[in-house]
Each structure stands twice: as structure tokens, then as C-alpha cells.
């Protein structure tokens, strides 16, 4: 994208009908480190690649538990992500207080989207520079949504955001018809994996949202690598097998 005379202000349209500031905000999401989400009918899994500012510093937190039944993974300006997570937690807790029941994730993402939209229509505000993968449950089952700085939101079977997300998306699309065990999440992140650089979280029916421990993630990664070696020897290895990991998501069924 190049600079132009319509991109100073979020409330200025370009002649082609674009809001450049909003598009620039979406660029910020693309520059962030990767986050991937994947769902089955009963479970949703989120995985993020944790980048550290330097070798001496700790990793930035990119996965947040919003409520027992909802969690988010962010990509982009993590500060904006933190603030929005606080908003989401507040909405969930207020609903629980009045109704003694969890806020359906579909209704939560609409509130988040409306909040983001406000920032695209006020001259004294700027859009949030963060994309959120929202994983949660409602009466109908498990859902994965992507909330955009533009105020749009979409439901996905699987999605990836952040840098190198296109490779992950292609990988996930290619496997759309087959079973999709948890281990593909690791592949999709597209990096040389060790448990120290990625965070994996899961939520499902009967399973509250939680971040899987580093040790368990390492076991999964190791199992992944051994299987990859095994399948490389025999072509068309059975992808449906699970490494027997109790935390793994159920294979995706045709919805």
C-alpha cells in the first residue's frame, strides 16, 4: 500500500470507497506473529507463536481466557488486544451476574465488532490494531470467530492470522475434507516448533477454556515429529490417527 491523500483520517473516504486507516489497521494484524484457530463440533483449539522482543525478555501473552467457555488469541498490537480482552471479560461477567448463565459466544463477538466499528466512525479515535480469534461455546456447540479491526466478524471452521498466516490457511484448506486432529495446528504454525515458542489452548463442551501446559505441548510436538518421519516412509499415511493425547480436539466432521 502506498501513501495517498485520503489516508490521514479514519473518517475520510477515498474516491474508490475505501477507508485507508482501517486497512492500515488490518496491516498491523498481518505484521503480528501468527495465531491459528481450528474447530470441531465440540471443541475449538487456538495456537499462537510467541515472539519475544529479545532473547533476554519474556514472550508476549497472546492467548487470553475470557470466561470458562470463551478464549481469544490475538495478533497485532498486543496492548489493544489486552484492552479488548478486558472488555470481553467484563461483558461475560456482567451477563453471568444477571442471568447465571454463560454469554453465548455469538452474541459476545457482535458486541466486540460493534465496539470496533465505533472506532472507524469517529474522527478523534483510531481503529484497534489487533485481530482476535475468538473460540467459544454456545447452545449449538463450538464456534470459532475472527474479529477484524474494521468491525467485521466471520465464523470459521479454521483460520490463521498474523505473519505467514497464508501458508497456514492454505495448509488448513487443503485438509478441509479429512479429519483434522490437533497436531495439524502445530504444522500450521509453520515454524520450527518447540513448546517454548508456542502457546496452545483449548475449549470444548464439558471442557473449560485452558492453556495446555508447556510439557503437554512438547509431548504433542515430539509425537508429531515422530509421526511425520513415519508417514514420510509410507505414502498416504492415515491422517485420522490421534497420538492418544487426551487434550486433543475431536476430528472435524462435515458440518
Amino acid at each position, binding site marked *: 500500500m502506498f501513501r495517498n491523500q485520503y489516508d490521514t483520517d479514519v473518517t475520510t473516504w477515498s474516491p474508490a470507497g475505501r477507508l485507508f486507516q482501517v486497512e492500515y489497521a488490518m496491516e498491523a494484524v498481518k505484521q503480528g506473529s501468527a495465531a491459528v484457530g481450528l474447530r470441531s463440533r465440540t471443541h475449538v483449539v487456538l495456537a499462537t507463536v510467541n515472539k519475544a522482543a529479545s532473547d533476554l525478555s519474556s514472550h508476549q501473552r497472546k492467548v487470553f481466557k475470557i470466561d470458562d467457555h470463551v478464549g481469544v488469541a490475538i495478533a497485532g498490537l498486543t496492548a489493544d488486544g489486552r484492552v479488548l480482552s478486558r472488555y470481553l471479560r467484563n461483558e461475560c461477567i456482567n451477563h453471568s451476574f444477571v*442471568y*447465571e*448463565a454463560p454469554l*453465548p459466544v*455469538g*452474541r459476545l463477538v457482535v458486541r466486540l465488532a460493534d465496539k470496533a466499528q465505533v472506532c472507524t466512525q469517529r474522527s478523534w479515535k483510531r481503529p484497534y490494531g489487533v485481530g482476535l480469534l475468538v473460540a467459544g461455546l*454456545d447452545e*449449538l456447540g463450538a464456534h470459532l470467530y475472527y474479529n477484524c479491526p474494521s468491525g467485521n466478524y466471520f465464523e470459521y471452521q479454521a483460520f490463521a492470522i498474523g505473519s505467514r498466516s497464508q501458508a497456514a490457511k492454505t495448509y488448513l484448506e487443503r485438509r478441509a475434507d479429512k479429519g483434522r486432529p490437533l497436531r495439524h495446528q502445530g504444522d500450521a504454525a509453520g515454524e520450527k516448533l518447540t513448546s517454548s515458542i508456542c502457546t496452545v489452548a483449548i475449549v470444548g463442551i464439558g471442557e473449560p477454556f485452558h492453556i495446555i501446559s508447556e510439557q503437554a505441548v512438547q509431548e504433542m510436538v515430539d509425537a508429531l515429529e515422530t509421526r511425520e518421519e513415519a508417514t514420510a516412509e509410507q505414502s498416504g499415511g492415515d491422517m485420522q490417527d490421534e497420538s492418544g493425547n487426551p487434550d486433543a480436539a475431536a476430528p472435524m466432521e462435515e458440518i
Partner: protein
Amino acid sequence: MYCIEDRFLMSKCMPEWILTLEEQGWYPYVTGTSVIGIKYKDGILMAADTGGSYGSTLRYKSVERMKVIGKHSLLGASGEISDFQEILRYLDELILYDNMWDDGNSLGPKEIHNYLNRVMYNRRNKFNPLWNSLVLGGVKNGNKYLGVVTMLGAHYADNHVATGFGNHLAVPILRSEWKEGMSFEEAVKLLEKCLLVLLYRDRSSINKFQIAKITEEGATIYPAYSLKTFWGFSAFQNPGQFAEGTW
């Protein structure tokens, strides 16, 4: 404590702290008496008479004190009828917005029970209560729920509940005779037994009742009917026996 004159003077600044509700001029006018609710095999059964008393006068004889809320719940109320109508309007709006989402999620009886509790408790804290005791029952996804919210904001859920005089006259009967998984006929008989006791002993009750049922399939409020009463007790014969000239 201060005398009434001093309290009236002090009450100029914050009447709700100094004066009782009656002294402030808050009285219930048209009131309904007990509501009884029980769980049975297919869902919830609720019963109430159709009377609206104006003080000690049994003024209105066809007041429906139980209403269907949304797809999954029934609400019965005793106490001030106009406050019950106000609550119905709040719930109407709540259900409307819930339906407008059209996303496969809906408010179940537990959620509505908690919402009503919030409303009643907040009003009581402002010394402006809704003068009702509410019975909220319903079935959702096979789960039966039956709860009560009082005008003070106290709330609880149980297999059998009652309000007002029902607490004293009906609940003891229910405690001894209610059992899990009663059929519709058994449950109605049990309710009628309680209603009859209330009819004999509660002076604000009238002999015109409604039964309401809610199951997974839906809710029905049956048309009103009367119970047979018996007054032929020997003690009631010749009432002027020991008080010559009485009428």
C-alpha cells in the same frame, strides 16, 4: 427510636430511610393470594386462584395470575397485580430482544429466574419494591427448573414451592406427599388437595382456579374451574345454638 412527629420532620431529606413503606403511602391495592408449583414427570405444574382482592373485599374474580414467558417458562405471581403486570412488561422486552438475535440461543427458566432476582433485589434496595412473590418454572433441554423470588429479593429453587399462605398450608402437604416422577393426573390431584385447603383456610382465596403446565413441548394454561367443597360438618349445624339471637 424517635416518635412519629420527629420521624416525619427527619423524613424530609430521605423518607425511605426514616419511614416505613406504609407511612410513605405505599400500599398494595389489588392483590393475588397463593401460587403453588410442583415438578412432575414431564415438567412443571403450577396452580393459582383467579382472585384479585381489594383489601378484604374479593373484588375481581377473573384475574389470570400465571403467564407463559418465552418458549420455556411460566411465571406465577402473588401480591400486587399491577406490579405483576409491570414485571410481565419487563420480561416481554427481555424475550423480544432475545428472539431478535435469532441465533439458536434462548433464555431458559434459570436465566429468567436470576434476572427477576436482580430486578426484585435492586428495587428493594431502593425502598421501592415490586410487591410480589414470584414462582418461575420451566423446562429446557430436558432440565426442569422451579424457583421463587420474593419482594425482598430472596430466591431459591426446589421441587415444590408456594407463595404467601401456600407456604404455611400447602408446603407441608407437598413435603409429605410429593414424589419424583409423578404423572400429570397424580400431580393435579396433589395440587387440588393443596388448593382445597387454601380455599377453606385462606380468606383471600376464591373457588375458581387455574392450572398451568409447562413441558419440553410447550406451555398450557387451562381454563378456570371450581372445586367441590363440603360444609356439612356437625360443628357448623345450628350455628346459633350457643348464641341466641345471632345472625
